[in-house]
Every structure is written in C-alpha cells, then in structure tokens.
C-alpha cells in the first residue's frame, strides 16, 4: 500500500490553491544498483485531481519528474469545505488516492 500524500487545499479569495507532496521513488530506469544491475523504471504516469467530483487537473508524467513529487496549482469554483480528491497511478499499475478538505 503506497504511502499517503500530503495535501494542502486553501481557499484564497475566489481561487483554491492546492499543494500536494507525493511519496514515490520516481525511478528513471537509468540507475544501476551496487551489483551493476539496472534498477527498473518505476514512476507515476497519471495524476488526477477532482473537486466535488469535477476534474480540476489531470496530468501525464515521465521519469523526469523528481522523486517525492511536489505539485501546486490553483482553480476557481471551489469553496471551503469542498473535498479535493487526488489519485496517482504508476507504471506498475499501483494507485494511491487521498483527499483533503478545502480550508
């Protein structure tokens, strides 16, 4: 079971600011271990963010996104108390969904 994300969602005027820290190795597939074997690529490929059921951001990522990814963006139409749901899916098919309430 992948580690939980840390999500902060704050209402600033008419915009909701979302900041999320995800726990993921984001292995490029180019590193070698101490035995010289290639460490296989392992990275988040899809990210989806919804607010009150509506998609507010979706993304496709490659291996160049940093380990323990950080993402920040803003959207309009949300309000305090609404639920933000973030889901990531990686190339192994592993998934993690976390939610936060807009403060």
């Amino acid at each position, binding site marked *: 079971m992948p580690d939980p994300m840390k999500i902060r969602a704050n209402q600033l005027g008419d915009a909701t600011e979302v900041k999320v820290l995800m726990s993921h190795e984001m292995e490029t597939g180019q590193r070698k271990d101490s035995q010289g074997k290639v460490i296989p690529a392992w990275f988040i490929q899809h990210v989806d963010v919804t607010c009150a059921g509506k998609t507010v951001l*979706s993304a496709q990522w490659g291996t160049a996104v940093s380990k323990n990814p950080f993402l920040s963006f803003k959207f309009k139409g949300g309000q305090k108390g609404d639920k933000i749901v973030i889901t990531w899916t990686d190339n192994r098919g592993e998934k993690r969904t976390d939610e936060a309430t807009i403060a």
Partner: protein
Amino acid sequence: MADIDQTRRKALQQGASLSLLTLLSAAGWLAPGIAGAETWNKSAFDAHSMDETMKALNGSSPAPSKDVTFVATPDIAENGAVVPISVVSALPKTESIAILIEKNPNMLAAVFDIPQGTDPSITTRVKMAQTSNVYALVKADGKFYVASKEIKVTLGGCGG
C-alpha cells in the same frame, strides 16, 4: 460497436493482449479525467527531440510566445535531481502546459491538462541531467506555443 470489434480482432490477430481500458479508451467509452483512462503517451515520453515530441503530441512546431513565462524559477539548481519549475500561461483558452528539458535523455517531463476554471499555471519539480534549456510548451486554442529558459545545474560540495 464495429470499431471495438475491429480493434479486438486486430489485437487477437497480432497476438497482443489489449487491456480492457485501452479498448474502451479507443472506443471513446471512458470519460476523460478517470485516472488511467487515457493511455500514457509513450511515444511522447520516449521522444528525444522537440520535433519527435511534437509529432507524438499531434502538433506542429510551436511558436515562441512571450505570454508563456517561467515564474520564480531559479537560474541555478544546486542539484539536478530537484529543479523547481513554475510556468504561467497568459494565452486565452490554454488547454495544456508541458515541460520539456532539452538535454535530458527524453525531453518530455510532464504534461498537464488544464480544464476550464483551472488557472493556467503549474508549479512542480523536475530532474535535469545537466545544464540545459527548459521549455514550457503550451497548447492554447488548438495551437502550440513555447517559451524557454536556461537553467544551470551545479555539482555541490565534495561532488555529491
């Protein structure tokens, strides 16, 4: 129905096993926004040049635009593993923002789809193999635009 039959037939003939998701996606049956609904754009992420990437994104050469800017993005990164990038697009009808790193093994780092109501601005962190131009590629109103910035990557301390 015919489309999905053709796809399935082709898959069976080729001996490939298409996931249900891919089949459904091809038939347009999955609403966008569901995680994994769109197939991960492998050819775009495998591309080594701007031209190759644009081809995989179904776009032509992007036009340079002053309306695409890097905000609060430092010129120097102390370590290439984590380089903060913030892109803002002032272009109306911005649909997506992508980040490309010229000297990385594969140029495309990330693509963000911006639905209506979401600010066309993204902050994230990327890996840079070495000092390089970083491109912010924006799709607005069906057309592609680009801005670039050189970010220097340094080696710190005792080499690590």
